[in-house]
């Protein structure tokens, strides 16, 4: 590989040649040469830096890594591109000596950032720039760069000029390069042959820093563009993890009044409806996480997970709070959760995307079913700061394409952890909403009762007052009776509207869960069809080779089995289509016993001991099919869980009527549920029984059915030891049966 040699500076009328520069003079060329090839140029410059705001971001990150306290991003005459247009990034960081430029700036892949992950003392910042991307970012902004830099301990300023057009030109020539042409080959110019002019000037003071002046600007910058840059730059440093050595960014413009000289601030966050902090305890290696329990959002602790400890600050905004926030921060975005490493934003979140719709949902918050609907929050309701660190979370790594993190177990764990925190927050918000609803209902009823008392007091007063006041008291009584009637009507309307809303929500949910079913069923059907098509194709090609008769018989059997499986899918679909139609009275005890009885043959075949203990009959009016679905899915789930038990296999269902609740404990002594799966086991597709044919839909059906009956289901401590699972189901009922609305 031809490395550029150190050579003398061009001196067209400029000062040059400090002692240091002189010492490396060579007669072989006229400038400094970058040490990289065409693929690096393209990869780092054009392909990794996807837009110019990211390019600015990279340059500002470089200033951060260079221990700068201040950096200014200056725009001059950029509204209309002309020869006078320029962008300057100026910092008061460490600066570079001539040798730094030669050995670091001009060499890709061997920069100090990679050998040391910390910036020099006393700042010791975790470096955030990526593999020398910053210097190529300039190309995205404009094609000519003048870099001027000085270290505090050096009496000289070094200036380097790079014309990216030269590289671009050569890059095109290399595309057309014909390797068979030997003459051309011999004279072929490489990227490393391009010379970059530099010169050195003396300055005997302790000033320091780097200034990058970019001219031949590629695109105009409107005020809106600069505002976007401002918003993105404001995200660079986490507002919650205060840096030991502050880093201030300013934007300056000679054209836009609002950006004449404006400090970029990551704003303190006010007006959130809920503010939540999830911490960790490094001494005892405990991670906090959210848990909604008995009307409260609590913090529980568990040992560190494989991903390492995580600090999470979450702000939730309801509609009113969002409006206030947006008004105060002039359209400031509430745009979801971002991951910060050591106080500085991680690359996948630093990529700029102007259109909301194109923004990548890296953490999968909006990919969740019903996200933004009903009681699910979406990115536009949340601002969140997830703090990780290089030391604590070494396996959370930005992927090389900068669009995401490396897909590994730890990163998946982090994503699940975040989603679980949101799930708990959602439960809490729903609980609060229900509580407020009940409070309003109770206040209205209270008002009605007080009016009743008021009316009766007025009547009593009338009867004991002189008769000339009777007329006035009568009028007052009439008015209070009328107000009471209004309040009663209001209560009725409130209840009616609430019922209507619940019905609508149920209908929506039912339609949307049908989408989930449809997707799942499509998968099952298509896999099955694939097998059948394979068999048909095999028979078509191989018949009538008689020595394959056994194979043909096997094929027929497999088609039959596949058909059976398809039939059961169709039956399931049909049962779903029929559900939600007929409410009738049935006995819970009888129904559960019947469901167990129907599985008798499986229990016998698998040698499973089934126990059903229900303390009393309970007649309820509801959709019988819902309860059947719940019990059948729980049985089927447990059958799979105990399948590989070495010893005894037990499935047990206990039913208790307690006050206004029917409580079911459903247990087995199978392989159990991992602690970390307890919250997500009810999600569609989450399955731990795939080997036994679980499709990840059963417990989802259980949960949705129970919720539609206003009940709840949770995994509690397993009844059977050492392994097993116990589900606790609570179904509320009133004297008319299970509460259905």
């Amino acid at each position: 590989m031809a490395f550029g040699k150190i050579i003398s500076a061009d001196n067209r009328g400029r000062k040059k040649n400090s002692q240091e520069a002189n010492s490396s003079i060579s007669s072989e060329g006229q400038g400094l040469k970058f040490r990289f090839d065409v693929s690096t140029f393209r990869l780092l410059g054009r392909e990794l830096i996807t837009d110019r705001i990211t390019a600015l971001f990279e340059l500002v990150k470089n200033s951060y890594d260079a221990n700068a306290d201040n950096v200014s991003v200056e725009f001059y005459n950029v509204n209309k591109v002309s020869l006078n247009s320029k962008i300057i990034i100026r910092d008061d960081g460490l600066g570079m000596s001539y040798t730094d430029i030669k050995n670091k700036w001009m060499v890709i892949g061997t920069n100090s950032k990679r050998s040391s992950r910390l910036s020099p003392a006393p700042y010791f910042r975790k470096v955030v720039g990526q593999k020398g991307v910053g210097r190529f970012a300039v190309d995205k902004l404009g094609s000519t760069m003048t870099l001027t830099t000085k270290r505090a301990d050096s009496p000289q300023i070094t200036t380097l000029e790079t014309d990216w057009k030269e590289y671009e030109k050569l890059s095109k020539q290399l595309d057309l390069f014909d390797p068979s042409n030997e003459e051309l080959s011999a004279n072929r110019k490489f990227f490393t042959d391009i010379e970059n002019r530099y010169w050195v000037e003396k300055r005997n003071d302790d000033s320091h820093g780097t200034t990058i002046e970019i001219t031949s600007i590629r695109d105009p910058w409107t005020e809106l563009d600069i505002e976007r840059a401002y918003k993105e730059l404001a995200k660079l440093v986490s507002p919650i993890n205060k840096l030991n050595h502050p880093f201030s960014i300013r934007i300056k413009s000679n054209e836009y009044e609002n950006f004449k000289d404006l400090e970029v601030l990551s704003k303190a966050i006010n007006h959130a409806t809920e503010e939540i902090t999830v911490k960790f305890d490094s001494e005892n290696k405990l991670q906090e996480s959210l848990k909604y329990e008995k009307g409260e959002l609590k913090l529980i602790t568990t040992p560190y997970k494989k991903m390492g400890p995580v600090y999470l600050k979450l702000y939730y905004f309801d509609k009113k709070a969002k409006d206030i926030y947006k008004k105060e921060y002039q359209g400031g975005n509430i745009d979801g959760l971002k991951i910060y490493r050591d106080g500085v934003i991680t690359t996948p979140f630093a990529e700029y995307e102007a259109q909301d719709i194109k923004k990548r949902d890296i953490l999968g918050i909006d990919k969740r079913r019903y996200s933004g609907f009903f009681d699910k929050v979406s990115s536009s309701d949340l601002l969140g700061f997830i703090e990780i660190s290089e030391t604590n979370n070494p396996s959370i790594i930005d992927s090389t394409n900068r669009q995401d993190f490396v897909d590994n177990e730890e990163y998946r764990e982090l994503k699940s952890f975040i989603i679980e925190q949101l799930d708990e927050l959602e439960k809490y918000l729903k609980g609060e909403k229900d509580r407020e609803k009940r409070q309003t209902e109770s206040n209205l009823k209270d008002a009605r009762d007080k009016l009743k008392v008021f009316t009766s007091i007025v009547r009593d007063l009338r009867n004991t007052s002189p008769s000339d006041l009777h007329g006035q008291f009568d009028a007052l009584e009439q008015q209070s009776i009328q107000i009471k009637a209004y309040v009663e009507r209001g209560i009725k309307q409130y209840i009616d509207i609430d019922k209507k809303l619940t019905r609508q929500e149920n209908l929506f949910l039912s339609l949307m869960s049908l989408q989930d079913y449809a997707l799942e069923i499509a998968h099952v059907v298509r896999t099955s069809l694939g097998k059948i098509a394979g068999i048909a194709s095999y028979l078509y090609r191989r018949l009538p080779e008689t020595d394959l008769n056994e194979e043909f018989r096997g094929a027929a059997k497999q088609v039959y089995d596949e058909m059976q499986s398809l039939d059961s899918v169709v039956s399931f679909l049909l049962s779903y289509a029929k559900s939600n139609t007929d409410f009738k009275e049935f006995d819970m005890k009888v129904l559960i016993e019947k469901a167990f009885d129907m599985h008798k043959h499986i229990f016998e075949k698998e040698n499973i001991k089934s126990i059903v203990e229900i303390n009393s009959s309970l007649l309820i009016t509801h959709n019988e099919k819902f309860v059947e679905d719940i019990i059948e899915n729980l049985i089927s789930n447990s059958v799979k869980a105990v399948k590989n038990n070495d010893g005894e296999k037990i499935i047990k269902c206990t039913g208790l009527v307690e006050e206004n609740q029917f409580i079911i404990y459903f247990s087995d002594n199978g392989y159990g549920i991992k602690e970390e799966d307890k919250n997500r086991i009810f999600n569609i597709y989450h399955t731990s029984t795939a080997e036994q044919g679980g499709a990840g839909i059963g417990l989802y059906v259980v949960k949705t059915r129970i919720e539609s009956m206003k009940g709840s289901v949770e995994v509690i401590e397993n009844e059977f030891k050492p392994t097993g699972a116990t589900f606790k189901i609570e179904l509320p009922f009133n004297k008319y049966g299970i509460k259905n609305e």
Partner: protein
Amino acid sequence: MNKSSSKILIIDDSVTPEDYRVKDLKFDYEDVLVLNTPDSAVEFIYNNLDERFIAVLDYSFAKDIHTGKYVLDMIRDKTQLLPVILWTAYDDDVKEYPEFINQGTFAVVAKANYDLLREKIKEADEKLSNSVDGALEEWISHHSGSDRYNSFLVSSSGEKLSLDQILSEIRMQTETGRYFEKILIKLTIDRLMRKEK
């Protein structure tokens, strides 16, 4: 009909060796292997980089944290030569299609369309036959006799290589392999041109 010397590798958690698609393909290809997990597939491929394979890769694995995308990335980390056919039941739900295309996936086939899968495997097989390594393998099997095991070429670093070793170097995309591939193409073009004159 002669069997192709390609081996088919089916990476899918819902296929067993008893599957009739496996049995059917066995009539036309030297062998059909089934691997049910991404990790076992990657391990197998890494250990057999010097063989002529066509991979049929499922996208989702119910029990695994990895998808077919991971397997493809791992394959491409080592070789560009192995044709990979993506087959999936969710033919419209793979969000990483562009990435699959960028990583040189040979074809994408819906699971229910077995005939299309056969067709694509055949095309991939033909492509392999026309590739440098495929052509070289064919040439070795027809012409070389014992030369395949004897040293045939000395590399610039002084390493002695037999024809079989050269083939293996090409398939493993080593520096020597890539270099040999390049000069072979250059030489062939040169020879062709001269003859034409």
